[in-house]
């Protein structure tokens, strides 16, 4: 720039100052006559002039002296103040000096803020300040500067806080512009902080860029919660010149900067609430996006007028590419009427994060436009998605791990998982899922024949479905009932979502990854979500914590086998840690940060705390008792109940009197007098919701339908709950030669054949169906006609017809036990072949003489063989194995196995029909053969099974060689299949399982 140019700029600058502000812009445009550079120079100088009123106002000598004074403050460095050793000074400002100090007692670094006396010479004020600061110190949120301590150190008021390295948002705003996503990220974190503070009843009142720290790792920290009130109070009593000087000294241009971020109600001096912070956040977003403040004037009064009366220019005026949604968010935050604003910072944060996510997705789509969908998981991924659950009969996606269980594990499964748990991660997948079958059943039919249980107020429940993807795994509602967190599993990818109940909008807080999220629990304040991450590569499950509105997940503690439950004061949490190999099941209590672990009670076999599947315990509202789903075994088998563990001394009380088939989740009602729980009335019935009086043992039914309920989470006042409702539709199709194009649907029932499907030699189909209200065995022609029910007693599954066609073998659950039976093709001549507790999954030899089956009765699950006429069974193999299927020539048996010492450690083994060591091991992922879907090919040369997505049948040659895809179906997943004995027809069970979150209101 030349002096001439500068003179020109100067002349115009002065001329413009003479012009009324309203006409200034027009004046300048005329004067500059298209000289954009001149216009910009003068405009920025005018703006600078407005800001510079305090700039270099004090003489240099005074400025230097103040700096020197500050230096002498440094004399404190190295000194001890109380238990703090001062390391260095990190800031000086209107609110006092801030030092980096070491807390010598706790050995951690802290920022020590010493307040100037002029803020605190009024005793009442000190009192208020301490109250506020102490309230703020209760805030525990990753986006809020943690206050360690507030007090008085040798006559000086101090606050010790977390020490944060980074820069203020103010600095950041000056250095480089924010892109929209960065701005959203920062804003959402501020929103999270505000939401958490507001939930705790603390309003910031002074949200501005100077109070926001940006850490290098992307974390945003909001500072000085609770302190703003103090400055408000003192502002009248402090000489404005001092304040000005403080500001001048610290940051030129930010003269009394707070005004620009004040809400209208604050500017008016009215009472404020959390919505004032929402406004300020709106101003900050505006500034981050446009590098301008929405409300500004030459003086504070002008700014105030703008805040009260003027609508700011749209963001798009400055940044044309700004998303309309962001415009909407900012407009809503800057609504002058508090009622029109976001009522809750949480909602604003959700909107911000959702938009941020959408932009991410858009960017991702843009990046990956030419890409095809090649991100399919390898089929041997140790994970079981929702679709891979067939024979568990509409379970939600099973948690598959060392625990190898699913939601509604039966007692049968329980035993198995006890045996197998922690022996290896994926090993159990096939085994347990198969065994689940034995226990999952349909108690409703029987219930209707029994005396009706007392009906409670629950009959008027209102049920709202919150999701529609059908892929939900686990869900929990926030204590205030405003938000629901749920995990989804899609194509073996787990993700975590938070849904705002009122608006119905969901935001993804953990994007899809090869992990599954279970045991979801909100912290008592609703700020965090605790969950267990099921990662295939990890052998034990750990508890993690993530801010409820997203952020980084941090590990809290390892070896957590149930969802956690919180003490009423929010300081501690409890969960079950199971060591099935040692036969020990412990109720563990820890501090919320995972420290201070203490075992409250340990149950030893045959007693146990339930730990498999999604299990929820509940800490009572009075803090005294933790209700835990528990179980035990006696001569009549396993049974379940709810045990109350007393927090004080670890002793227990039985809270339920009935023998339940299974109790999975329990929650205390509002007044600790009753329990809401998810339980199977009998081992084989569906899990339903119940209310049980802990005083009288009286049982009330909450739900009474054909769905299965697989989770339970209550609001604080117990007025609402969420659960995961699971439904299945399954029908039988027939395809000549397995040709998908010629496949024909032959039934229209709701749940046909998923638990068993077989052909008779003369081309009839024998299948399971729950058309009568519980699982029974039926027969029909291959075109669906002449459908007849063959069994009427107990719960019947897994029909298999011998090639000779004389008998159907099947297993029946009755009287708490499962045994193998046979009957004629017309249902007559029924004969029980085994007499144990758990004998199931029979197959019959082609000659019709022998039945092989699995049983864990001897401790490990093994294969057994019994004559078609009954008698003493013989053990076929000393190795653990399950789901035997006999080759068409009756010479070999294929069975799934898991064996840590074998190679591969899991898969399918082939062994001689008469038993002995396996002759071959095939590497077939166990989740691909779950249920009944492992069969020999009609020619006996291959084994057939489903791919992991359940979309088609695959064939692997026994002699070796790669597996090949046999069918070419599209659309709905397959649940089961059976080739006709002549190899010409393929019968299939197809349909779908949906798992969705439902909200139940009006619980009274």
């Amino acid at each position, binding site marked *: 720039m*030349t*002096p001439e140019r*500068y003179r020109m700029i100067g002349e115009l600058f*002065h001329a413009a*100052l003479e012009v009324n502000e309203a006409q200034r812009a027009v004046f300048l445009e005329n004067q500059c006559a298209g000289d954009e550079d001149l216009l910009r120079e003068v405009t*920025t*100088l005018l703006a*600078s*002039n407005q*800001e*510079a009123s305090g*700039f*270099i106002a004090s*003489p*240099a*000598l*005074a400025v*230097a*002296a103040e*700096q*020197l*004074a*500050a230096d*002498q403050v440094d004399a404190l460095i190295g000194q001890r103040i109380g238990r703090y050793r001062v390391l*260095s*000074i*990190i*800031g000086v*400002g*209107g*609110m006092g000096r*801030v030092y*980096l100090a070491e807390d010598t007692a706790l050995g951690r670094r802290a*920022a020590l*803020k010493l307040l*100037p*006396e002029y803020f605190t*010479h009024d005793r009442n004020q000190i009192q208020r300040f301490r109250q506020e600061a102490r309230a703020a110190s209760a805030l525990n949120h990753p986006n809020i500067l943690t206050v360690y301590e507030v007090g008085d150190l040798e006559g000086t008021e101090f606050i010790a*806080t977390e020490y*944060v*390295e980074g820069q*203020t948002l*103010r*600095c*950041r*705003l*000056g250095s480089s512009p924010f892109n929209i996503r960065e701005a959203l990220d920062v804003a959402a974190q501020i929103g999270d902080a505000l939401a958490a503070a507001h939930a705790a009843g603390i309003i910031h009142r002074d949200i501005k860029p*100077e109070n926001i*720290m940006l850490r290098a790792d992307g974390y945003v920290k909001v*500072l*000085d919660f609770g302190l703003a009130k103090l400055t408000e109070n003192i502002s009248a009593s402090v*000489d404005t010149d*001092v304040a000005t*000087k403080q500001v001048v000294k*610290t*940051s*030129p*241009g*930010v003269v009394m*900067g707070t005004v620009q971020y004040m809400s209208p109600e604050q500017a008016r001096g009215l009472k404020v609430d959390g919505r004032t912070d929402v406004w300020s956040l709106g101003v900050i977003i505006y500034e981050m996006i446009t590098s301008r403040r929405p409300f500004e004037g030459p003086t504070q009064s002008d700014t105030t007028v703008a805040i009260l009366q003027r609508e700011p220019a749209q963001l798009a005026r400055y940044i044309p590419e700004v998303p309309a949604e962001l415009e909407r968010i900012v407009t809503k935050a800057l609504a002058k009427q508090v009622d029109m604003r976001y009522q809750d910072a949480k909602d604003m944060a959700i909107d911000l994060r959702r938009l941020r996510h959408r932009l991410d997705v858009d960017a991702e789509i843009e990046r990956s436009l030419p890409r095809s969908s090649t991100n399919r998981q390898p089929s041997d991924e140790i994970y079981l998605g929702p679709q891979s659950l067939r024979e568990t009969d509409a379970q939600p996606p099973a948690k598959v791990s060392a625990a190898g269980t699913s939601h509604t594990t039966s007692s049968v499964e329980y035993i198995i998982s006890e045996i197998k748990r922690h022996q290896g991660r994926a090993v159990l997948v096939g085994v347990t899922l198969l065994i689940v079958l034995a226990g999952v059943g349909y108690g409703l039919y029987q219930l209707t024949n029994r005396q009706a249980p007392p009906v409670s107020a629950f009959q008027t429940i209102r049920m709202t479905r919150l999701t529609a993807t059908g892929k939900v795994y686990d869900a929990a509602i926030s204590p205030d009932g405003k938000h629901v967190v749920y995990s989804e599993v899609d194509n073996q990818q787990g993700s975590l979502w938070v849904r705002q109940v009122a608006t119905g909008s969901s935001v993804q807080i953990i994007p899809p990854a090869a992990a599954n999220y279970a045991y979801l629990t909100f912290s008592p304040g609703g700020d965090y979500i605790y969950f267990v991450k099921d990662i295939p590569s990890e052998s034990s499950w750990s508890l993690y914590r993530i801010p409820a509105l997203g952020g980084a997940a941090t590990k809290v503690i390892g070896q957590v086998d149930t969802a956690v439950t919180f003490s009423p004061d929010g300081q501690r949490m409890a969960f079950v840690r199971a060591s099935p190999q040692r036969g020990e099941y412990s109720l563990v209590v820890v501090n919320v940060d995972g420290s201070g672990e203490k075992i409250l009670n340990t149950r030893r076999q045959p007693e146990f705390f339930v730990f498999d599947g999604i299990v929820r315990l509940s800490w009572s509202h009075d803090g005294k008792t933790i209700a835990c789903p528990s179980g035990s075994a006696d001569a009549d088998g396993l049974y379940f109940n709810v045990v109350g563990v007393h927090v004080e001394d670890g002793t227990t009380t039985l809270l339920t009197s009935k023998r339940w088939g299974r109790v999975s989740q329990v929650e205390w009602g509002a007044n600790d007098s009753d329990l809401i729980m998810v339980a199977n009335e009998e081992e084989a019935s569906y899990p339903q919701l119940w209310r049980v009086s802990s005083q009288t043992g009286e049982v009330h039914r909450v739900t009474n339908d054909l769905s299965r309920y697989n989770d339970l989470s209550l609001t604080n006042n117990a007025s609402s709950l969420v659960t995961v409702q699971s439904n299945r539709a399954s029908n039988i199709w027939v395809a000549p030669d397995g040709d998908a194009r010629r496949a024909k649907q032959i039934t229209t029932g709701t749940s046909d054949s998923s638990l068993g499907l077989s052909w008779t030699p003369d081309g009839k189909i024998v299948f399971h169906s729950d058309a009568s209200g519980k699982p029974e065995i039926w027969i029909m022609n291959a075109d669906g006609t002449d459908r007849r029910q063959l069994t009427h007693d107990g719960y019947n599954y897994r029909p298999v017809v011998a090639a000779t066609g004389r008998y159907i073998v099947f297993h029946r659950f009755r009287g708490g036990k499962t045994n193998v039976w046979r009957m004629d093709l017309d249902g007559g001549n029924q004969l029980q072949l085994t007499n144990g507790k758990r004998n199931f999954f029979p197959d019959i030899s082609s000659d019709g003489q022998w039945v092989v089956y699995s049983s864990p009765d001897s401790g490990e699950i093994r294969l057994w063989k019994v004559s078609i006429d009954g008698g003493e069974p013989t053990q076929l193999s000393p190795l653990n194995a399950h789901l035997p299927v006999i080759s068409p020539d009756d010479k070999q048996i294929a069975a799934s196995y898991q064996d840590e010492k074998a190679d591969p450690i899991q898969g399918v083994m082939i062994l001689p029909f008469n038993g002995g060591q396996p002759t071959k091991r095939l590497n077939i992922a166990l989740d691909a053969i779950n249920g009944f879907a492992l069969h020999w090919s009609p020619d006996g040369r291959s084994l057939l099974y489903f791919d992991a997505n359940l979309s088609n049948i695959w064939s692997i040659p026994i002699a070796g060689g790669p597996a090949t895809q046999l069918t070419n179906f599209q659309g709905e997943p397959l649940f089961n299949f059976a080739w006709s004995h002549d190899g010409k027809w393929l019968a299939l069970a197809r349909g779908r399982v949906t798992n969705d979150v439902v909200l139940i209101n009006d619980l009274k």
Partner: protein
Amino acid sequence: MRTHSPEEITRLLVAWSDGDESALAELTPLVYEELHRLAHHYMSHERDGHTLQSTALVNEAYVRLIDWKNVRWQNRAHFFAVSAQLMRRILVDFARARGYQKRGGGTHAVALDEAALVGTEEAADLVALDEALGLLAELDERQSKVVELRFFGGLSLDETAEVLKVSTGTVRRDWSLARAWLHRELTKKQGLK
């Protein structure tokens, strides 16, 4: 520290303005003495809000350093100009030295609240201002003088007008434009909006 009579100070100033750098070495401790006196005041009294007293003390300090009322000086205006230059030189050196010291001391520049940074950045303010003032002098020498006289020399508008032999109104206009310009420069530089 031996005391200096106004005459002595005047003599030193003249010597310095004639190019005698050793005079600076003698003057600097005088300025530092005033700085410490003021600093002590801020340390012990800043919380009282006795700003009138503070202002008076600053004025006193200037008076002690540049006792223009008692100075028998042929060219009053020249004297003011020299003393303002001197203050600028000493105070900027002070700030610069302080900044180095801070950096050498490894202080972490971390802002914790609305306070901007003590130490390097704040000390840099005077240094940065000095540099910006140098740039301004190239665009408009008189404006830079106005700032030097008022900010570093502690002169009033009228005194500044007297030194520069222009009207008070001109000084006011110069001051307002220079201040806006400097503020813009420093804001750009410090990343402070």
